[in-house]
């Protein structure tokens, strides 16, 4: 493995890139991702009618269930998920292994 390839240590989320398409949630073999979203109408200048966009409300990965297969990262059509090298997120209880969008987006800038 080359130095530029991140190890399978943690999955980082870029919430701005996520369109709530649910592809990762459905492809996950261990059902460890949950996603909630709502639809908003965005009116743009010059557009005849407002555009509807999905707005991400909640994105959670349960690392107690995740098997680090990386299928969510592979299937994401918008590259909103990526591997990162941090691994220091152990927890003494099951709930502590559930990382929400804020937790997951915190991994993003740590680089590969």
């Amino acid at each position, binding site marked *: 493995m080359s130095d530029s390839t991140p190890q399978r240590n943690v999955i980082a989320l870029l919430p701005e890139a996520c369109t709530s*398409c*649910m592809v990762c949630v459905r492809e*996950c073999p261990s059902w460890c*991702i949950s*996603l*909630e979203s709502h639809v908003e109408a965005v009116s743009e200048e010059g557009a005849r009618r407002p555009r509807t966009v999905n707005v991400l409300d909640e994105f959670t990965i349960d690392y107690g269930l995740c098997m680090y297969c990386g299928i969510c990262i592979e299937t994401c059509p918008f590259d909103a998920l990526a591997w990162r090298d941090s691994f220091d997120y152990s927890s003494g209880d099951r709930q502590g292994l559930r990382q929400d969008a804020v937790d997951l987006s915190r991994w993003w800038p740590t680089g590969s």
Partner: protein
Amino acid sequence: MTQTTAIIDIAADEWVAACTASAARGCDVVDWLTAVDTLESLFVVVHVVDPGSSRSEMLRCELDSERPEIESITSWFPGADWHERETHEMFGIEFLGRSQTNALLMRAGDASSPMRKTAALDARVRTPWPGQESTTGRRRQKLPPGVRAEWTRDE
């Protein structure tokens, strides 16, 4: 280094003879033994290696999926013991001619053979699928992938 090992298909009544013939050719250590369920057929597969040259042979035998049974090879390959017990519990295959051993991985008396394709995955049926919700407004997918309709029929 991984090498591709050709699969040799063996008839059920020649299973022991074929395995001992492999041993005679030098492949006398069982690397692993397991079963493969393709829904259409059920196979038992054994991978035997020659520890000296790392040469290996893969033997496969198709079984009757209704009443799967095959001769045990533990008398010739003691290393197959654990694998035969595991395969017996996971796939419900009867290995003939070996001393009966109590349950290894499953609860005693549980004959559900969870690795068979026909075994319903209870947890998958009972757990709410996170992918159920639709954000695109299209028709909802009724069942998650990997969950068959016949598993939920009796609920």
